[in-house]
């Protein structure tokens, strides 16, 4: 095994261009665990930790190498909330948003935030230049993305300005160090436009569009609108039963969680 440590994006893209089969290593919190679990050892590693461009963060454009540690201390809101729930402090010190996106686990905690905010994934390669891919086109299945050979995720691009309200929460078997059983992000703009995205309930992050349309039309949602919103979210999700939870629990919890987050949006001052 061979390991390269490029200091600049150009060099990283060149290395990957020469060997598109190389293993890309950012914080290593997913890659190293896979290795310890007996995945075959990679032949060629390109480590991104030193790529300076990757740690850049300007307004809504967040470099792929930005760690949860920085995100949780960033502007308050859904992304900081999601980042705070990832793993443990040590994992947040090294794990990156780019790694979360590239892993594309259904339980990736930044994914519902990206989907609810309609953020885009910026990718680049030596030969193909830069592409900006909508989240919906980027996530294609369980741990599957439309990233092409030779491409790196370079940044996550959030809308600027963000919606006035955005809230994230997840449900797991306990409070600390837990992979989501259901996660959700709700955003609401001053004009009532509402978005709701859920994680861990489908192969890719899922938007509950019928619920969004119904609640976006309500300027001041009352009890019956909130109940209907919750019902529509539960109806939209496509969860499975696995070792973390059952299909029916996840369905129920999705509606409860989305409603709770919407209520927070309605109650709080704009972010």
């Amino acid at each position, binding site marked *: *095994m*061979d*390991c390269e*440590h490029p200091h600049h994006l150009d060099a990283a893209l060149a290395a990957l261009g020469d060997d598109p089969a190389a293993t890309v*290593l950012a*914080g*290593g*919190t997913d890659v*190293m*665990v896979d*290795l*310890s*679990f007996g995945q075959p*050892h990679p032949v060629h*590693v390109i*480590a991104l*930790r030193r790529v300076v461009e990757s740690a850049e963060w300007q307004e809504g454009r967040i470099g792929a190498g930005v760690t949860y*540690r920085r995100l949780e201390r960033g502007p308050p809101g859904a992304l900081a909330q999601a980042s705070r729930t990832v*793993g*443990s*402090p*040590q*994992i947040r*010190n*090294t794990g990156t948003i780019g790694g979360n996106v590239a892993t594309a686990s259904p339980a990736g905690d930044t994914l519902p935030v990206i989907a609810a905010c309609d953020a885009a994934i910026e990718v680049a390669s030596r030969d193909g230049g830069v592409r900006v891919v909508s989240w919906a086109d980027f996530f294609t299945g369980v741990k599957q993305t439309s990233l092409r050979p030779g491409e790196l995720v370079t940044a996550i691009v959030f809308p600027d300005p963000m919606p006035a309200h955005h809230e994230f929460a997840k449900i797991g078997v306990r409070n*600390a*160090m837990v992979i989501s059983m259901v996660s959700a992000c709700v955003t609401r703009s001053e004009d009532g436009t509402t978005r709701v995205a859920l994680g861990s309930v489908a192969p890719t992050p899922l938007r509950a569009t019928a619920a969004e349309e119904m609640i976006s039309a309500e300027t001041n949602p009352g009890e019956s609108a909130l109940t209907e919103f919750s019902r529509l979210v539960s109806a939209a999700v496509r969860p499975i039963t696995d070792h973390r939870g059952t299909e029916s629990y996840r369905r129920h919890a999705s509606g409860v969680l989305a409603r709770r987050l919407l209520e927070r949006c309605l109650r709080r001052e704009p972010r």
Partner: protein
Amino acid sequence: MHVSMSVNGREVSGDVEPRTLLVHYLRENLGLTGTHVGCDTGYCGACTVHVDGISTKSCTMLAVQAEGAEITTIEGLASNGELHPVQEGFWERHGLQCGFCTPGMIMQSAYLLAEDNNPDEDTIRHGLDGNLCRCTGYHNIVKAVQYAGARMRSEEPDAPDWEEEGT
């Protein structure tokens, strides 16, 4: 592959298999066996060290990724023969039983106190989320961190539980 880094203030270098984990490099190549391996998968926190001042699970990092970094392990925490306040806290407040989790607990506690030397109990418990202990039930670990925080603020630590109960 060749690596060089600073470990506990000492420059070290040598050849490693590129796939060597930082924790194995520390334990096997440098003989610093104070850093423990409990799981190898990022869960238990026994392998916590500081990489450029930031707490990291050394089982999730390759030795070659630490090229040029400054590493601090449990062996490097005491200075001039004086225990670090956190080490003293674990001693004074019985923050350990078998001791397996202790090096990682101490490194993570030292990191959290370096960020905020007056954390409330909740902050301490959250700060230690990634460190598992099978023995203590965490109660005395929290007390040990509070003791260390007081020392670092040059305050008198609270009396231990067993004296408060005043038998």
